[in-house]
Each structure stands twice: as C-alpha cells, then as structure tokens.
C-alpha cells in the first residue's frame, strides 16, 4: 500500500508540506493575503462611495472596477486559503467546473428572458 500522506511527485498533500516542514513560512503568506483582501474590500467600498471617479453609479467603468476586485478576492481565497496553489490540479478543475456551470446557468436564464437582446 502506498504511503497515504504522499500523493506522487507532482502532487504533495498540504499536510505533508505543512506538517512535515514545521518551519515552512506559509503563515506569513496567509497574513499577507489577508491584508491584500482587506485592501481590496476597502477599494470596493471606495468605488461605491465615489462612483463619479469611475463614470458614475452603474456605468461600465464602475461595474468593471467592482468585478475586477471581486474576482481578485475570489481567486486569492481559492488559490491560497483553499490550497489550490499547492493541491492536485484535479481539485481546481472540479471546483471551477461547478463555478463555470453556475455562470452558464446565469447566462442561459438571461438569454431565455431576452435580457441581452432587449437591453434588459
């Protein structure tokens, strides 16, 4: 039977990385990511508080700015806090398959309601 904590050369479990290497400086990285997330959240609130800078509330610039910060936060949490950076790529594929399907549900419903063709 294979060692249950080793998953092959390409994929090392986070338990192996964290547990066997107690000095691995990942906690500092986590704190840095949390600071970046806090800054991005502050940016979102600033965009909402000063919409004129981005072309006005609901303008393409305003929505784009918020979508960029939202997806940056989403990616950072998934990639670092959920260990997708270090885990087997299959997990990334499984998760983003679900996510992309969810986006397709949204697009399908909007197409059904002719939102895109009739301008909402």
């Amino acid at each position: 039977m294979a060692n249950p904590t080793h998953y092959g050369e390409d994929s090392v479990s986070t338990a192996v990385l964290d547990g066997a290497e107690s000095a691995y400086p990942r906690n500092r990285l986590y704190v840095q990511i949390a600071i970046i997330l806090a800054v991005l959240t502050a940016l979102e609130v600033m965009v909402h508080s000063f919409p004129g800078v981005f072309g006005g509330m609901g303008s393409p610039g305003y929505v784009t700015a918020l979508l960029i910060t939202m997806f940056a936060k989403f990616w950072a949490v998934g990639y670092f806090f959920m260990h997708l950076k270090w885990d087997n790529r299959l997990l990334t594929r499984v998760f983003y398959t679900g996510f992309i399907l969810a986006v397709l549900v949204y697009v399908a419903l909007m197409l059904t309601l002719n939102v895109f063709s009739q301008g909402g």
Partner: protein
Amino acid sequence: MFDPEVGKDVEVFHPVHDTNTGISNTKLAMWLFLGSECLLFGGLITTYLVYKYPLAGQGPGPEEVFDIPFTSASSFVLLMSSLTMVLAVSAIERGDHHRLRAWLVATALLGSAFVAGQVYEFTAFYNEGLGFTTSRFSSAFYGLTGFHGVHVTVGIIMLVSMLLLSLRGKLPEHKAESVEIVGLYWHFVDLVWILIFAVVYLIP
C-alpha cells in the same frame, strides 16, 4: 470488535484506502460538494438579479434599505475569519494544538459576529417594511442571503465540533485533514459572500 481467536474485544485499525486520483477521497468529495454548491448559489444569485427590482407599490427597493458601511464591516469580519481558519489548519498540521483551538475559537466567534450582523440587518429591513413576502425583491434577497447565513451557521457548528474533538484529544495531527476539510467549507462560504457583497450590494 470481538476476536474469537484472542477471545476478547480488540481494537480494529482501518487501513487508509489508496486512491487512483492521487487525492484523498474525503477531500475530493468535499470539493465535488463545493462544486455542486456553486450551482445552488448560482441559481439563487441569478434569481435575485432577475427579481432585484420590486414592482410598483411592492415596498422598498435595494437602494432604499441597504446599509453599505454596515455590510462592508460584516464582509471584513467574514474575510478575516478565513485567515483565522487557515491558521487553524496550519496549526494542527504542525501539531500545535493550543493554537489550533485558539484559531478555531476565533473563527467561530467571527462567524457568529457575521451571523449576528445578518440578523440585525434582517430585523432593520423588516422594521422598514421589507418582509419575506413583501415583494419579489424581498423574497429573492432573503432567500439568497438567508441560505448563505444558514451555511455560515452550519460552518460554526462544524468548527465547534472540531474544537470539542480537540479538547477531548480526538483530533491528533494525523487527522489534520478533518480540519482542512472543514476549512474548505468555511472558505467556500467566504467565497460566496465575496460574490454576494459585490453583485447584490454594490453593483446597482
């Protein structure tokens, strides 16, 4: 289990099963569950976007009731709970049970603060005339954010369970994956809120 050859109960060690994916079965199952949860929340967010504006005379709309500074603070609290959660996972993987418990408690408290904020927000909205059946907007909004709140509450229960197991000495280092899997769920709940905060609260 009773062993007839020995003539008494013996402790049974269950072998760790190999996988042909290179990933532990439990972790893969949790990720598959989270992938399916994307579809659940995708459906709820889509429904909200379709019904976000109430019909005339059906009570207040989103711009009239949302308190962005308050919700921003709640979002910050939930984001920071993701940090304490990942630090808890890191602690048990290093065998540091004292810090594991401290970070689990911190995560549960931050999650509780978020849920308390949501209860306060719902109460304030209700007092402003926005009940669950007031309008299509209110039903979609309460349905989406309520489902998320239930997920956070379930996460808190899981965290407290992990804490109790640790206090009873039933969470050794080689079971660190249990904490990691609870952590995956917790981070997912945070991910969903990142989407809700931007799409529901900030983008008109």
